[in-house]
């Protein structure tokens, strides 16, 4: 059978392992995006709204961290959560918390950077308007989040998309353990290495669908902003 047709059949027939793997992937991505949200917003807002020495340098570092290869993050986290590392007693290596930690670190600079650039693009009149209407610091912060809600949503969606599609962190920190830490991308890597393309293709199609859905949402958010 044509591997592409086989892949479609796996999806249409609702193959249990394929969908379990997809579920695991989304589960990891959801939590890593969730954990990167609060610190990501805080740092992004700090960079965009407050002047402090070294602000530009920090912004430059954060934006270059968005291009950090996943295997570098994987390696770094690995050395910390290995039993012989400083956080070894947590037992997170080759377990879901390890993957989520690595993916959170992967998502964080993306969230910070997109929130920062999004807020920087807010109209200069916006803050002046809040000030002249009498809003204090806290209300200005809340109003800024409200004003930029679509920017923030698209930052989180971008981060979600990135962690869903990454393979380095999942492979190194999750160990590609079946029924446990095996994700869509690690399965694709494994199946391809074994020369078994049907399941890899079916997951590839699902990943593509997820990417398209996220892209559509981001597009909608950005369009709404304009």
């Amino acid at each position, binding site marked *: 059978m044509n591997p592409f047709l086989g892949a479609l059949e796996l999806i249409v027939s609702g193959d249990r392992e394929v969908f379990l793997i997809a*579920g*695991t992937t989304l*589960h990891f*991505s*959801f939590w890593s995006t969730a954990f990167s949200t609060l610190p990501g917003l805080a740092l992004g807002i700090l960079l965009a709204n407050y002047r402090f020495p070294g602000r530009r340098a920090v912004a430059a570092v954060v934006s270059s961290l968005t291009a950090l290869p996943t295997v570098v993050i994987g390696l770094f986290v690995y050395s910390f959560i290995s*039993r012989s590392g400083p956080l070894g007693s947590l037992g997170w290596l*080759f377990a879901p918390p390890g993957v989520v930690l690595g993916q959170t670190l992967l998502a964080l600079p993306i969230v910070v950077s997109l929130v920062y650039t999004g807020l920087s693009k807010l109209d200069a009149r916006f803050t002046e308007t809040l000030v002249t209407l009498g809003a204090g610091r806290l209300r200005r912060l809340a109003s800024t989040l409200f004003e930029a809600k*679509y920017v923030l949503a698209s930052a989180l969606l971008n981060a979600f998309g990135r962690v869903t599609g990454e393979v380095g962190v999942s492979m190194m920190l999750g*160990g590609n353990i079946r029924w446990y830490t095996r994700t869509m991308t690690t399965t694709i890597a494994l199946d391809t*290495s074994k020369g078994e393309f049907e399941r890899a293709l079916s997951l590839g199609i699902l990943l593509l669908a997820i990417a398209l859905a996220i892209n559509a949402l981001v597009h909608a958010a950005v369009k709404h902003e304009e």
Partner: protein
Amino acid sequence: MNRKALVLALAALCAASAFAMGGKEAAAPANPRIKLATTTSTENSGLLGYILPIFEAKTGYKVDVVAVGTGAALKLGENGDADVVLVHARAQEDAFVAAGHGVDRRDVMYNDFIILGPASDPAGIGSAKSSTEAFSRIASAGATFVSRGDKSGTHVKELDIWKAAGIAPAGTWYKEAGQGMEQVILMANGMPGYTLADRGTWLAVKDKTSLKICYQGDKGLFNPYGIIAVNPAKWPSANNEGAKALIAWIMSKEGLKAIESFKLNGEQLFFTYK
């Protein structure tokens, strides 16, 4: 798209994400997860997927298999990142135990290595008298050879044979892939070239290649697997109870029988010492 649709879509995404992972079966032992670091040859041949569910159903343990090369598997044990290792590189296994990283090493099973090559066998190794001589012929013919190059058990075995042949392999004919066994076989198929492979992996992927076994049967190609528990004195956090239970079951009549009865395309892959 309007705002309501966006919110709805986000909610749907969250709901999909929150869908639980499942896979947790009968729970009984205090620490039910055993981390087994092993080689790609045992996992990807399907052996572990065949025998471990029997063990899990019987004991309530859940074995998490991390499949890497032998060198990496031993390193995971050394660093306490695995509870038990199942590997094939006898000299390194002994060194691992001697250094105090592991305890309770047992010989589990064996299969053998084979030398794969193009059907035309351009270096003519089919008539060699030993694996050493076969390697020498490949080197002197300058025929393409794909090496694992990843410190796996197969790679260690390959280097041992080159050493016995008195050859330091280098040159454009010698390709270090740094990949798993299946991938290396597929690369050898594509080039085409020779490679050293374990029989189990070969049987699992041979339908996808036009390679053939060019040389086999030499005593020097014997491939024994050992299982070792990570030393609980060194890593108190390791699941030593689980490791002991797994080793005991694998070495039991039932475990050994399960290994013997595992077949791929009608052929037995691993043999026990019973």
